[in-house]
């Protein structure tokens, strides 16, 4: 088992909350090795899980470029040293490791460094049973900067027409840019179940599940509590059934 799941959607629909709840669920299975990647420059997943950032992928990238420019690194050993530094950059919590991507790349062409980084991340991901990526809205950017391979696009939307439209757009962009992956829609902050049926019938996206409006989520968000300590409340129960439906 080695699955990479990207949690995508319009800004503000609850991607980070859902990614954080998925991390909480990974911690429930101590025989599973999980990796959480915060691909949002705002580092929302770090805040939502209270997992500190040791060093971002972009910090690492800048250090490597500086090393190359100062001639303190042998280009042939670069791939191996990235491997070392990536491991040093991981924050570990039980069976869950966490890596933050950081702010976007600066101008300039560092193709070799970027390629090595992508390969090193891909290699790292291949060691984990599940990788959860809290993505930026634009899947093209996610694909280019973080990973070559994504197995499942979890498209998160609230019930708004705009949120659903963005989910479909990401699905289409993903179809062009990412090979062999499945997609599933997760509806968030659902107040009434009948709304789910209405949307399911009107949208050409497979529904993976839905998460009800839950006051605990607001409480955790507003008070900056770690979702890794989220109680056995409706949002977590719904997330658990979504997690169970993820393709094996």
């Amino acid at each position, binding site marked *: 088992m080695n699955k990479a799941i990207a949690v995508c959607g319009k800004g503000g629909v609850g991607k980070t909350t859902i990614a954080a709840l998925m991390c909480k669920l990974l911690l429930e299975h101590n025989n599973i*090795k999980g990796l959480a990647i915060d691909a949002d420059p705002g580092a929302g997943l770090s805040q939502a899980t209270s997992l500190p950032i040791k060093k971002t992928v972009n910090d690492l990238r800048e250090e490597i470029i500086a090393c190359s420019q100062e001639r303190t690194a*042998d280009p042939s050993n670069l791939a191996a040293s990235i491997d*070392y530094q990536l491991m040093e950059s991981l924050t570990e919590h039980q069976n869950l490791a966490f890596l933050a991507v950081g702010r976007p790349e600066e101008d300039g062409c560092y193709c070799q460094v970027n390629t090595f980084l992508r390969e090193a991340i891909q290699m790292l991901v291949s060691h*984990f049973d599940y990788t959860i990526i809290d993505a930026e809205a634009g899947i093209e950017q996610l694909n280019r900067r973080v990973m070559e391979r994504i197995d499942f696009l979890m498209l998160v939307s609230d019930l708004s027409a705009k949120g659903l439209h963005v989910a479909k757009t990401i699905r289409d962009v993903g179809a062009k840019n990412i090979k062999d992956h499945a997609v599933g829609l997760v509806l968030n902050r659902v107040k009434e179940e009948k709304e789910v049926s209405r949307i399911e019938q009107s949208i050409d996206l497979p529904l993976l599940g839905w998460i009800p409006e839950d006051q605990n989520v607001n409480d955790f968000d507003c008070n900056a509590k770690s979702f890794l300590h989220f109680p056995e409340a409706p949002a977590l129960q719904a997330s658990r059934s979504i997690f169970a439906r993820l393709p094996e």
Partner: protein
Amino acid sequence: MGLFTEPLQKLNFYRENARKRGLLLEYMYDPAAAWPQSRSLVLQEDTAVELGGEKGSLFMVLWTKELDMLCRDSISIVGPKLMDIVPAKMPFAQIILVGGEFEDEYNTYRDIMDVIFDTRLEGVSTRLWPDRQRIWCRLSNEAVEEGFDLFRYGSALLQNFKSHSWIQSAEVIFVTTAEDLEALLPEAAKVQNILEAMQKMYEEMIFDCETCDYREVCEEVESLQEIRQKLLKERGQA
């Protein structure tokens, strides 16, 4: 004289000194003892012992055509062997000496590094930063329970080296005490300097000694001057 003749002499002296101090454990390579190989990632939670990393580490590779400069096909451990280790984290040095017949120093280094990178042990995460001479190993609880130790680690490395026809023998030295690791640092810096000078020659087209950072080491190590002459000739600049 080879590239590393002087550092190898110093390492021989160091090994002999450790033997006299009663700190040296010596084993002959045993293919049956080689630890099984497969890629592993060991997370903190599953880690029984962490070698190197924050506790201090050193990684060094040297090669020679003079086979009597190394203890052929042996594994030496200076300091506590893994099974004796009480703390979960400890300093770690891995020194690899390779003897064989080769033409080109640069490709020899690449070949040796390929063998080291390709040695992936079951239940062991090894990360290398060769340019900084750093190494970091995590040994899983399961690997330690099943009898992993540095002799078996060394045997796996030697097994992989022996699959290359140009390599006639190799030696692995592990160091697990902070004092001994510290004592090796000056020699390690010298080795790194020679390596960097050699790589610079192969990777650059211009040999301007006046502005080169490695002028001093090139003047000191005869083999570097020979490489320079050879490359100048090959590139028609002699």
